[in-house]
Each structure stands twice: as structure tokens, then as C-alpha cells.
């Protein structure tokens, strides 16, 4: 177990596939085989074995958490699971495969380094497989594994495996953001190629699924190129008894991109005021530099007006700043989206009013082609929209930075989260000389 001296990274992944493709079984298998299951969990599985029929332990029961789901025998929401090997810790988002639950996959995948798309070897590539691969691309998941499951039911046929691989590879070029896609033949039920390599697939050269999860390179999954610090909370102790604390004015937040150094010149947006980083303050002492996604508190040389929702950026690699934006959205609510509707939009640490001025297209999930001018987007639709915000957003294209390129829409009144949005790249960037006259 991981309390050795070398640092252990966290890898976050999600599993997706249609109902009965074996997602729950696969996660159960990973937990079971990596010895992350405890006696009482196994005991609870045995106790509930007769609910699902058959006296045998049902690995899927481990992740089908809620009673409503057990009664219906389906997974209906995103569940998170944790396991560890001596090399890595894993956070698993178990996302269900029903057509109507695309929003759950978007939720589970949004924080993932890697997506596992399960394909039932008997059924081959179906609409759901295409949809899930497309969503992985849409969300910019850096790594994808196509796990061809139930290989035991197709006699471990290499031909069948290659057929499925070819079919998926034929549409990958249209999803060109997917640069790291791996195909692995498995049997989740029996454990073949999940943790140990299978003797049934001598034709497969490559790692087991867990072997891949343990070694895939994730260090560069964060954007380290442009400094972005969305100001989250202004830290003002206002202590009248301590002179130094009385004047302390820190800008707290989690770095959403890049690296910040003491002495670096920075710009605060939207004001455009410039200053220099005086201190990088943390509870554990001051740092000389900090990087994404660390949480820090910056102290600037100048006492300029900065508040929550502002963004501190470096002078090279500047973001866009506008209130007329284009974005892809995944619609997540029963009430459809129509042009003209108003919402709250939360982007980084800023919440602003917004109006959807146009729905440009709706993606046909079969062909991945956009269909122009739909009248509305309904639940689970993906499409491109135009929006106008009450205040400009300081942002990057989602493809460049997932943290400064994403937003959610919130329905006014119910406060429901109704959409996940991914901003298209800005057509114009803030100029370094912006507001030079101010200081």
C-alpha cells in the first residue's frame, strides 16, 4: 500500500458504455483484483446477492449504490470510487450509459484525465460507443481507452477485436483532439487483461488495463503555459493590533493555468491595471513560485482594487476578454434551451447574467455533423450557441485551458444547473499595452 517515499500521483478516470456492457463489473473487478475490497464489503455483497438473483457475488453491486437503482437494477447517477496501487491512486467516476443520461457522462468526464469506453465485443460499435467517444473528445479528455469487453463470449477472437478497432479508428480523424487512444481486449467478468495479462489473447501485445492506468503520462494534463489566477477571495485580516496584518491584502485563489513567480509583472483583468508579485503567501510559508493547480494567496506591490471574479494574468500569453461569446454546450435539463433565454453563467470565480442570443447548430451524434439552426436544444443535446454576458468574461478556448474555457448555466428561480459550456477560442486577445496609461 502507498506510504512509500516516492510521490504518488492521482489519476482520475471515468467508465462509459451502454447498459450491460460491463462497467460496474469492470470497476468491481479493478477494486477486487487490486485488493481494495474489504471483508465487510464482500460480506455486504454476499448479503445482497439474492436481490439480483443467483447466489454468486455480483461485482456490479459494489458500484450500484443507491436503493432506487438496486431496485431497478440500473445505475442512474454518477458514483465515485477509490482504489490505490503502490504506483498510483485512482478516482473513478462510474457514469451510466443510458441515452437519457449523457449529462452524467459529461459530469463524470469533466474532471477525468482518462476515459474508458466499454464496447461489448458481441454488439460491436453502436450509437452509444460513438456518442461516448465523441463526448470524450468534446470534453478534451487527454487519454482514452477503448476496452473491448466480453471477449470470452466471442472466443477471444482477434479478428472481432480488430474489426471493432478499425471501425472506431475510421471515425477518430473527425475527433482530432483525441491524440491518445488505446484499444485493450478484456473480460471484466473473468479478469482477463484487467490486472493480469490473459493467456487467452496471445495475439495482444500491450499493457493490461491497470498497467496502462498506472503508467500513462499525465503530468502535462494541466496547462502550464499562461498564468491565470481567478481571484476567489480577498484575504484582509484587518487586525488592528498587528501593524503588518493590518495592511495585509492578499488575493486568494487556485491557479487555473501557468506558473507565477515572485517579482513577475502581472495584469489584473478586466481593469488592465498592472503590478508586480510581491509575495506568494501560503499557510506553509512563502513560495518563490507556484503553479497550476496550487491554491495560493498573492500579495501585489501596488494596492490596486481587485475583487472576486477578477483574473490575474501574466503579460505574455494573454487571454480573451469579451461579452459576446461562442460556445459548445451540453444541455442537461428537461426544459429545453431556446434562443432569448436568460441564465446565470458561472465561469471561474465569476457569476454573471447572460442571454443566449442564438443557437447555431445541433450536433448529429451519428455523423458528428452539425445541423444548423435548430429551434431548441433538449436534454442531452450538444450544440453551438452564442451568448452575451452582462460583464465581459476573461477566458481561453476550452481546447487550450479546461479551467478558464468552461462554464455552467444556472436556471434563474430553480437554481438548477442546466448546461455545461465549452468556450470557443477568442477571436481577439487582450493586448499587453491594454490600459498602459492607468499606472
Amino acid at each position, binding site marked *: *500500500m*502507498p*506510504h512509500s517515499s516516492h510521490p*504518488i*500521483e*492521482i489519476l482520475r478516470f471515468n467508465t462509459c458504455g451502454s447498459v450491460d456492457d460491463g462497467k460496474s463489473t469492470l470497476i468491481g473487478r479493478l477494486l477486487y483484483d487490486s485488493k481494495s475490497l*474489504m*471483508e*465487510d*464489503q464482500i460480506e*455486504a455483497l454476499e*448479503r*445482497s446477492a439474492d436481490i439480483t438473483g443467483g447466489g454468486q457475488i455480483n461485482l456490479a453491486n459494489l*458500484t450500484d*449504490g*443507491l436503493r*432506487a437503482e438496486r431496485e431497478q437494477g440500473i445505475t*442512474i*447517477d*454518477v*458514483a*465515485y*470510487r*477509490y482504489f490505490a496501487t503502490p504506483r498510483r*491512486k485512482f*478516482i473513478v467516476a462510474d457514469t451510466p450509459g443510458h441515452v437519457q443520461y449523457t*449529462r*452524467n457522462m*459529461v*459530469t463524470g468526464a*469533466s*474532471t477525468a484525465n482518462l476515459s474508458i469506453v466499454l464496447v461489448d465485443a458481441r454488439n460491436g460499435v453502436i450509437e452509444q460507443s460513438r456518442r461516448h467517444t465523441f463526448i470524450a473528445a468534446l470534453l478534451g479528455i487527454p487519454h482514452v481507452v477503448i476496452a473491448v469487453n466480453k471477449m470470452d463470449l466471442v472466443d477471444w477472437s482477434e479478428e472481432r477485436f480488430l474489426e471493432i478497432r478499425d471501425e472506431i479508428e475510421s471515425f477518430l480523424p473527425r475527433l482530432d483532439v483525441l491524440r491518445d487512444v488505446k484499444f485493450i481486449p478484456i473480460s471484466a467478468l473473468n479478469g482477463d487483461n484487467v490486472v493480469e495479462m490473459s493467456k487467452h489473447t496471445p495475439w495482444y501485445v500491450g499493457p493490461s488495463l491497470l498497467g496502462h492506468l498506472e503508467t500513462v503520462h499525465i503530468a502535462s494534463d494541466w496547462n*502550464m503555459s499562461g498564468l491565470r489566477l481567478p481571484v*476567489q*477571495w480577498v*484575504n*484582509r*485580516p*484587518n487586525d488592528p493590533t498587528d501593524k503588518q*496584518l493590518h495592511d*495585509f491584502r492578499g488575493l*486568494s485563489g*487556485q491557479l487555473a493555468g501557468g*506558473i507565477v513567480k515572485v517579482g513577475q509583472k502581472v495584469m489584473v483583468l478586466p481593469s488592465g491595471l498592472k503590478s508586480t508579485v510581491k509575495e506568494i503567501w*501560503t*499557510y506553509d510559508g512563502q513560495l518563490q513560485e507556484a*503553479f497550476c*493547480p*496550487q*491554491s495560493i494567496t498573492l500579495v501585489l506591490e501596488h494596492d490596486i482594487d481587485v475583487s472576486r471574479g477578477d483574473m490575474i494574468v501574466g503579460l505574455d500569453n494573454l487571454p480573451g476578454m469579451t461579452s459576446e461569446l461562442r460556445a459548445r454546450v451540453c444541455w442537461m435539463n428537461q426544459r429545453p434551451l431556446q434562443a432569448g433565454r436568460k441564465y446565470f453563467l*458561472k*465561469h471561474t*470565480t465569476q457569476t454573471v447574467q447572460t442571454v443566449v442570443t442564438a443557437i447555431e447548430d445541433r450536433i448529429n451524434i451519428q455523423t458528428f455533423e452539425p445541423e444548423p439552426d435548430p429551434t431548441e436544444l433538449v436534454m442531452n443535446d450538444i450544440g453551438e450557441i452564442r451568448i452575451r454576458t452582462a460583464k465581459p468574461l476573461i477566458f481561453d478556448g476550452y481546447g487550450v485551458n479546461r*479551467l478558464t474555457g*468552461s462554464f*455552467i448555466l*444556472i436556471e434563474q428561480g430553480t*437554481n438548477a*444547473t442546466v448546461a*455545461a459550456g465549452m468556450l470557443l477560442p477568442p477571436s481577439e486577445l487582450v493586448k499587453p499595452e491594454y490600459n498602459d496609461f492607468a499606472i
Partner: protein
Amino acid sequence: MSSYHLDHLQYLETEAIHVMREVAAEFERPALLFSGGKDSICLLRLAEKAFRPSDIPMPFLNVDTGHHFPELNDFRDRRAAQLGGKLIVRKVEDAIKAGIAVPTPGEISRNRLQIPTLLAAIEEFRFDCCIGGARRDEEKARAKERFFSFRDAFGQWDPKNQRPEIWNLYNARVNPGEHMRVFPLSNWTEMDVWEYIKREKLEVPTIYFSHTRKCVRRNGQWLPVTDILPPKPADQVKELVVRVRTIGDIISTGMVESPANTVDDIIAEIAAARVTERGSRADDKTSEAAMEDRKKQGYF
């Protein structure tokens, strides 16, 4: 590039600090649930990391069932004072007297009665958010819990109607009377908690470490013998070397036999353990859906 790199505890820490600061910025009247248990001890350290050098901008709230381990309450009071925080304690006993919590005849456990007591405290102080130390790895029903978990005007959780939670963009909006439960440790495991306690050199109540105690065997567990839980004649009573792994009420917390004397010992024990921490709590055993039912009504 390789030096710009967080290990697993640093990753979990920065995620939790971000969540804490969102709470401070988005809510008007947040509170932090602090019991003195290991998870909430980590919460307090994370609050220091999120808000220092300022004061922690929210009071600490604890529901005292009257069945707490005395060591736990002592520790709770001392730690809150050390941090200069305001500690609010609301007692199940008082809620029973006021008719807010009504025990069913013969009900000894205070577990269910915590719920109305907590909800009354939330109403009393008009808290719009409570930060709690729950982790998703604790129990199956918790595995689907959000970081920001919405509660309606009755304090209820509706697992079928949760807000999707995407990226790190937390929807913190609530209408008057509704509130949010926020769980910064959602992604932490029991091991992470102990590793963090070790790295941060955090003090924990002594009952987490090995000590000698008179225990009585009930439902396959060793429960501490106290005035509230006197042994019956037929009971098997033993003096054992034990510690607690998770702290519930003194009448339902199973003591595990253990020589673990230090945080390192505990980490080694968890690494080798074959039972999850909630396996030692009688309140969850009743049925597999026990936790889920309590959560729907407004349990932590």
C-alpha cells in the same frame, strides 16, 4: 516540468482549499461542522490553509448527542479555542426537552435524533451552508454525493435530483430556507486522512490510539461499557486493548483490538486492514440502505 507536480495529498489539499474558499465567497452564513473526529480535524487545518492570515470566516457547529466519548468533547473544545474560532454546540438532550426531537419509545440511540437537532440549529442561526467532513469512500450511498449537496427547505437530500457537478464549477445558489452541505474531503480516503494527519503533524483525540477498556460483545462488535450501556447478566464482558477507527456515539462505536500507538502504526494497520472503517459502526449495519435512508432525511 517534472518539478511542477503535485503528489496525491497536495492535489486533494488544493481541491479542498478551493472548495472552502468558494463557500466563504458564495454564502452569507456558512458554518463548519466540527466534531473533533479525524475528518473534521483535517477540515480545520484546510480552513487554516484557505483563510490565514485572516480569521476563519465561519463558526464551528457541533451536535452533541449526549453520548459522545468525553475525550472527544474535551478535544473539540480545546482545538476550537486554539484556533480562535467560535464554537456552537447544540444538544440532542435540549432538543428533546423542547420537543424538537422526539424519541420513539425505548429508543436509546441518539443517532436519528441528531437530524432534527441539526436542522433546528441551521434554522436558529439561518445557516445557508454547512461544511462537513464526509468522504465518498465511507459508504455506498455517499459515493454519489456531490461536493455541493443541495438540501431543500426540509433539509432533505434527493439523490435522484442532484445538480450535475461539472469541472470545479460549483453551483452554490440556494433560495431562502434551503441550504447546502459542502464536503471538501469528498475525494479523500481513510488512508489519505491519516497520511495528511501525519504530514501536517495534527493532534487527534487519544481514543484513536490503543488503550485498555472494558468492552461488551453485541452484534459481533466490542462496544465500550459505560453507564449508558451497562452489561446485561448474559453479556460477555472483557478488558481489551483497543482503539476506535471511526467515532460515532459511545453506545454504537465498535472498538477494534489494536496495539496501534502512533499515527504511523495506524497507517500500517489501515494498509493491512481487511474491514472498512464503517464496518465497526452498528448504526450502518442494520440494512444496506441504512445510510441512504438517514441521508435523505437530513443526516450529515
